[in-house]
């Protein structure tokens, strides 16, 4: 068993806004091995994004403990890279400059860092686009740049918050393929939030299914499909069985309802 990279024990998060208290997460226990690709899938508002923010150190838990690489998380960490749903590139820097921004903000500089930025941009398919500005690129390409930015400081742990959610279906397929290839190359721990069952099973070693709010771990599935999976993994009977099992959980919890219109 590989060493645990991310450990959440009894984690709960309650947001207080005026007199209103919203419990986003309650009693979450998760353990993720170093170098694993773990996806979290759940209905909207189940606290998936809050989970990611807790692991990233952007938000502190109301109860329980979050540990990364054996240390309690007390704030943003040097070994964490984040990719959000929106690319959030800054429009005054070209693509290379945007990737380097991650390093400059962390006080890292020098020719090696610059070289790594270029290598990563090529790895995500943006070779030759280093000096283009964000508004000159498509949504998919912007998100590729955001992934390169998330990895440029060699974080060892990449947190992705519905990174392909805003892309069109075909671009999303390509991004899934490329992300798997990138992960096989870099072997960072990936914590991947999505609302797509298909995407979760296609990409991850392990799929964590969340319940509705207050979110907690409902089920955990191990996905033992061979790598690289490509898109052909969807033809594997095990793929169908897993997506079906997860769909059934959502049906039994009322997240999905086959009878809705028949009523």
């Amino acid at each position, binding site marked *: 068993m590989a060493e645990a990279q991310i450990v959440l024990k009894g984690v709960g998060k309650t947001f207080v806004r005026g007199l209103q208290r919203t419990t986003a997460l309650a009693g979450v226990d998760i353990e993720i091995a170093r170098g694993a690709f773990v996806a979290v899938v759940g209905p909207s508002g189940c606290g998936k994004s809050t989970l990611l923010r807790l692991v990233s150190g952007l938000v502190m838990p109301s109860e329980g403990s979050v540990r990364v690489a054996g240390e309690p998380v007390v704030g943003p960490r040097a070994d964490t890279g984040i990719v959000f749903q929106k690319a959030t590139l*800054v*429009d005054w820097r070209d693509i290379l400059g945007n990737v380097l*921004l991650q390093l400059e903000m962390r006080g890292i500089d020098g020719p090696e860092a610059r070289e790594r930025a270029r290598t990563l941009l090529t790895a995500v398919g943006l070779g030759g686009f280093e000096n283009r500005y964000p508004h000159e690129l498509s949504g998919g390409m912007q998100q590729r740049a955001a992934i390169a930015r998330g990895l440029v400081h060699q974080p060892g742990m990449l947190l992705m918050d519905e990174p392909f959610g805003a892309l069109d279906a075909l671009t999303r397929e390509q991004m899934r393929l490329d992300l798997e290839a990138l992960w096989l190359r870099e072997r960072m721990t990936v914590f991947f939030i999505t609302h797509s069952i298909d995407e979760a099973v296609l990409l991850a070693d392990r799929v964590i299914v969340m319940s509705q709010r207050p979110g907690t771990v409902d089920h955990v599935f191990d996905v033992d499909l061979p790598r690289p999976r490509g898109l052909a993994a969807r033809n594997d009977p095990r793929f169908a069985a897993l997506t079906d099992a997860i769909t059934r959980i959502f049906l039994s919890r009322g997240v999905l309802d086959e009878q809705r219109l028949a009523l």
Partner: protein
Amino acid sequence: MFEKNGGALSSIATAIALLVVWEGATRLLGIPTYLLPAPSVIASDFARNWPRIADSSWITTLNMVAGFVLSVLVGIPLAMALAYSPQVERSIYPIVVFLQILPKIAIAPLFIVWFGFGTMPKVLLVFLLTFFPIVVNTVVGFKSVDPGVMELARSTGAGALRTFYKIRFPSALPSIFVGLKIAAALASTAAVVAEFVASDSGLGYLIITYNGQLATPMVFATIIVLGVIGLVFYFLIEFVERLVVPWHVSMRADQAGA
């Protein structure tokens, strides 16, 4: 680009046509010069009195630029304080807004009482008129930083200073330049009004004087010079904008072309 040049050419053609019609109409209809002088009369009077206009132009330009620079030096730091400190915003912003609602030109006579006839009241009136657009737009710029980008900045663990000069300031620059350009357009108006009221020097004073002598061609000439000064000042700011925020200007060009 091609279209832009075509636009400039056709507007020059229109201007020339207008001048010809103007010249012809004043001659054919025998309009008295003190009512509406012909362009040729304005040009020859202007050529004769050139040194006097040049001296006054220099004074007016100095008043404009000094007031504008003062606005930038006071306005941008104040806007930053307003954007980042709720305490400062609560205590100062209502006063700033109230000052804006006051018709500032009405304050001009008071400035003369307080500061006499020299440069001071004029610079202060330019400052007063150009100050508000700079403050408001700078506040907007600093407050409308993309929250996603701010979250990214937080995730890097960078300190407040680094976040300011790597993220907040560049992100606010396009909006700051909106304020600077509005202020630049107001600056010449403010300088002339101040010179009307103080009436001792500058192009504003010259207009009042020539008007009193019914030297209408010279009034026209002075107004044209004022327009040119205002235009040059405005385009100077726009030129600096192109140097400082080229990404923003290029995005605008894209949108216009689309």
